[in-house]
C-alpha cells in the first residue's frame, strides 16, 4: 500500500485551551492542503472544541476555533464526535461547524478502526 491510499485519522482529546488542540487542527489543514485523505475524531475533552459561542480571545488565546470553518475548503468532510463524551459533559449537538457526525462509542470505534494511521493529540 502506498502512502496516497492510507487513510489518516486525527484523534483529538484536548481541551480548547491546550496547545495540542491547535496543533491537531494545524496538522489536519496541512494534510488537507496536500490532498491526503483525513478524518477528524473528537473524544473526551476534545469535544469541547466544537461547542458554539466560545470567546477564547477573552482568556488571551488566539481564536483558532474559527479556522475550523476552513475544513470544508480542504475537503475534510469526515468529522466524527463521540456521543458518550458529549453526554458525560452535558453538551448538546449545538456545534459551530456543520457536517459533524455524532457517533455512538461502538460506531466511533468502527470508524477509527477503518483508518491506517491514527495520530492522537
Amino acid at each position: 500500500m502506498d502512502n496516497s491510499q492510507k487513510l489518516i485519522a486525527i484523534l483529538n482529546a484536548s481541551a480548547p485551551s491546550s496547545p495540542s488542540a491547535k496543533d491537531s487542527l494545524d496538522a489536519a489543514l496541512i494534510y488537507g492542503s496536500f490532498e491526503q485523505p483525513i478524518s477528524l475524531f473528537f473524544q473526551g475533552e476534545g469535544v469541547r472544541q466544537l461547542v458554539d459561542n466560545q470567546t477564547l480571545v477573552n482568556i488571551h488565546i488566539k481564536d483558532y476555533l474559527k479556522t475550523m470553518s476552513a475544513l470544508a475548503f480542504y475537503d475534510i468532510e469526515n468529522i466524527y464526535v463521540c456521543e458518550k463524551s458529549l453526554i458525560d459533559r452535558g453538551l448538546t449537538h449545538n456545534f459551530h461547524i456543520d457536517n459533524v457526525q455524532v457517533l455512538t462509542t461502538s460506531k466511533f470505534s468502527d470508524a477509527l478502526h477503518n483508518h491506517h494511521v491514527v495520530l492522537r493529540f
Partner: protein
Amino acid sequence: MNTLHLQRTSIYNSNELEQCIDIIRANDALVLLDDGCYCLTHQSLEQLKRRTPTVSIYVIKEQADARAVKTSNTWVKAISLKQLVDLTFEYNSVITWQ
C-alpha cells in the same frame, strides 16, 4: 483492522485508559508503558479483561520493575521493548494514548 494501543499515562492522573477502553476491540492489544505501568493495578484493566477477554494485554517489564509495580494477573504478559517493536508490525495501526 486491528490496532495496537500504547498506554503511556497513569489512570490515577488522567483518563486516557478509559478512552482507550471505550473504543478497544476484541482483536486489539493494549501495552502499558512509561507511567501507563501504573494502570496495572487499576480495576478498569480487570473490567476490560472481563468484558473483552480476547484483548491481549502487555506491560514493558523493565519499566514496571523500575516503578515497583506488580500484578498477580496471569493474563498480563511482561515483554521487553524489543518485543514491543515486533508487536507494532503485527497490528495494522497504532494509537498512542498520552
